[in-house]
């Protein structure tokens, strides 16, 4: 069968077979133990885990490692497959970081589309009071699904940018661990399948935060969602370790830490968070799982008779929130730091000026990442944690504003007295700054306990959060797609459609965001299927819904543009943006082995406007040796 030559098809078959094996296994074990044979949830959990392994075996991500275990050697295969069409490599395990980067980015866009469509469904429901189109149970599942699929999509988008760009920017031939890299991408696929399959297991009604005890009582869909997140989390951990090793060990000669393109700094800061904090969302979801299946009462305040007899203290629901937010707050920095890195990366190119305060921007990324570890409990000001904790977390939270401010001011310094040009990527970068500004400035009122007691769990938070995500990830991600499109495909996108995309999404988003903030201030709660018209928020909701559709439309314009241009667009020059970055000094599209010869770094990365300044010396054997 020709179709089985595609890794992804084999993977899905593997997942189905693995799931079936898991279901049968659990049933057999229960029979042997003399229990009623069928219990859905344990069978589903084991089935899901074996199914994930089945997928990875089927797709072929584990093949080389199995050979290593047997002591065999596995030469690294680079290049398109020899026995089938070149496009099939994108649907199979491939070790080239550029292929993996594209796989990440395209899967990420797909998931963002799914999540956005879900949002439009419940957004339509919210345009009027009362329930018109969907039931409350469906609504509750949809907003949780929107949240978590969006998060997975954004994580994949981040992975796409990092995997594609970091080796190119530091002059590495590939990532440090190419097989681990492929594993890290493919584990997302069974993860995403699991999360989406939650829809068919009764959904769940906790939102993406999964707070117990609600998540302990929720339908089985919550279990599929948590296991799916677990798999995506594994991707985060192995991907970030890979990135850190690559940056630490594989930089081109002469590229000291402060001569790296600024995006690499953002990738390092993001990876530090992903590497460590991700464990804690995994742990917190695992605890919910064992509480659901085995009755282990981490979060159960009610004790059994036997537990009282052995003198046990009760479980505590607030513990979950501490563990959960220890990841889930820094996670937003995982989403935005690469985006902010893209902004810093592109501004100098289109302003034809050095990046203002390179070291300050680089270190501010690290500062945001590190301070980000100390602020998680600002999500819990009303949650009933120890009251004395509120003040230190308020102070720590306010500190995040300082390195974020440094970035804004440095961006302004970068465009000041430049020679600005406005092709689509630059428009998206500037749009990102304006949108992220809304998100940033609405932050301190939530970070202050007194005002947060009002704003918490309202649409103000929804508005704040979406502004940071659009400004910190979505807009810069689109900028990156347009900016590196010629390097990836060798063709130019359509500039007119690019600008149309921008001029739809920017006003669309401003209306949506300010609308969410406004109805939130008037008393609109988060995560409700129906609201009280007496609050005076009906018109606001209509505006938000219409704006949501405009945003959706604009994304379709982009997808049409990129899909059409990838095949029919005009052939791109090697360096259409006159960039100094290494990847623009080689042909478009970038060859299989990016750099025919390792290059040498001889100057500063952003010396636009300094005559004679070089950054990348492409032929080191011809040029005088650089001091290392």
């Amino acid at each position, binding site marked *: 069968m020709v179709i089985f030559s595609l890794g992804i098809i084999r993977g899905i078959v593997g997942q189905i077979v693995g799931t079936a094996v898991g279901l049968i296994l659990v049933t057999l074990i229960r029979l042997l133990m003399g229990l009623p044979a069928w219990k859905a949830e344990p069978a589903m959990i084991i089935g899901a885990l074996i199914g994930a392994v089945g997928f990875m075996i089927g797709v072929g991500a584990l093949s080389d490692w199995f050979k290593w275990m047997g002591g065999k050697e596995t030469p690294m295969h680079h290049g398109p497959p020899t026995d089938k069409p070149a496009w099939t490599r994108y649907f199979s395990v491939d070790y080239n970081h550029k292929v993996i980067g594209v796989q990440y980015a395209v899967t990420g866009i797909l998931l963002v589309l799914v999540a956005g469509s879900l949002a439009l469904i419940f957004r339509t429901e919210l345009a009027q009071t009362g329930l018109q189109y969907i039931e409350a149970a469906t609504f509750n599942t949809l907003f949780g699904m929107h949240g978590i699929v969006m998060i997975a999509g954004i994580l994949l988008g981040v992975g796409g940018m990092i995997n594609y760009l970091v080796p190119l920017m530091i002059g590495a031939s590939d990532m440090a661990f190419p097989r681990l890299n492929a594993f890290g991408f493919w584990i997302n696929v069974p993860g995403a399948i699991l999360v989406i399959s939650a829809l068919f297991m009764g959904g769940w009604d906790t939102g993406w935060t999964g707070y117990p005890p609600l998540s302990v009582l929720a339908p089985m869909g919550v279990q599929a969602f948590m296991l799916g997140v677990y798999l995506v989390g594994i991707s985060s951990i192995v991907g970030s370790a890979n990135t850190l090793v690559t940056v*630490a*060990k594989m*930089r081109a*000669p002469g590229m000291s830490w402060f001569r790296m393109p600024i995006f690499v700094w953002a990738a390092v800061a993001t990876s530090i968070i992903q590497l460590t904090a991700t464990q804690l969302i995994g742990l917190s979801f695992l605890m919910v799982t064992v509480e659901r299946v085995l009755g282990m009462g981490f979060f159960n305040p009610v004790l059994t008779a036997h537990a009282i007899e052995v003198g046990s203290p009760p479980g505590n629901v607030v513990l979950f929130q501490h563990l959960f937010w220890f990841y889930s707050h820094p996670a937003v920095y995982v989403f935005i730091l690469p985006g902010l890195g893209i902004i810093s990366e592109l501004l100098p190119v289109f302003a034809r000026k050095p990046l203002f305060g390179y070291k300050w921007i680089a270190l501010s990324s690290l500062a945001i990442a590190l301070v980000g570890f100390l602020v998680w409990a600002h999500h819990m000001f009303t949650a009933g944690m120890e009251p004395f904790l509120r003040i230190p977390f308020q102070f720590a939270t306010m500190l995040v504003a300082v390195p974020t401010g440094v970035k804004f001011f440095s961006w302004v310094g970068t465009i000041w007295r430049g020679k600005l040009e406005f092709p689509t990527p630059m428009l998206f970068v500037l749009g990102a700054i304006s949108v992220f500004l809304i998100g940033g400035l609405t932050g301190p009122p939530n970070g202050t306990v007194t005002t947060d007691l009002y704003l918490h769990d309202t649409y103000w938070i929804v508005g704040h959060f979406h502004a940071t995500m659009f400004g910190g990830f979505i807009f810069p991600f689109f900028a990156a797609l347009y900016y590196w499109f010629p390097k990836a495909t060798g063709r130019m996108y359509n500039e007119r459609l690019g600008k149309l995309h921008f001029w739809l999404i920017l006003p669309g988003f401003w209306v949506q965001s300010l609308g969410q903030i406004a109805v939130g201030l008037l008393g609109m709660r988060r995560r409700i299927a129906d609201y009280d018209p007496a609050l005076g928020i009906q018109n606001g909701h209509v505006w938000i819904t219409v704006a949501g559709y405009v945003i959706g439309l604009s994304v379709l314009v982009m997808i049409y543009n990129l899909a059409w241009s990838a095949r029919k667009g005009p052939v791109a020059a090697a360096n259409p943006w006159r960039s100094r970055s290494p990847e623009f000094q080689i042909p478009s599209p970038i060859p299989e082995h990016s750099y025919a010869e390792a290059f040498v770094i001889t100057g500063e990365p952003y010396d636009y406007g300094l005559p004679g300044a070089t950054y990348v010396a492409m032929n080191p054997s011809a040029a005088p040796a650089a001091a*290392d």
Partner: protein
Amino acid sequence: MEKKKSSALRQSFNVFLGLAVLTAVEYGVSFIEFPTVALFIIGLFKAGLILNYFMHVGLLWSDGGKHK
């Protein structure tokens, strides 16, 4: 060669002895009134021994990894 090997084995055994003694001390300390801090400090000592001698954490720094 054989000499180096036996000295490495001896070091290995000494570290093991140290860890065993510290574990015994931990058990003893647990009977005093507020053992938490003491136990934590002993734990850190044990961790230091394992990290340094058994896990060779120093190799992370000493093997460079610069382009040669």
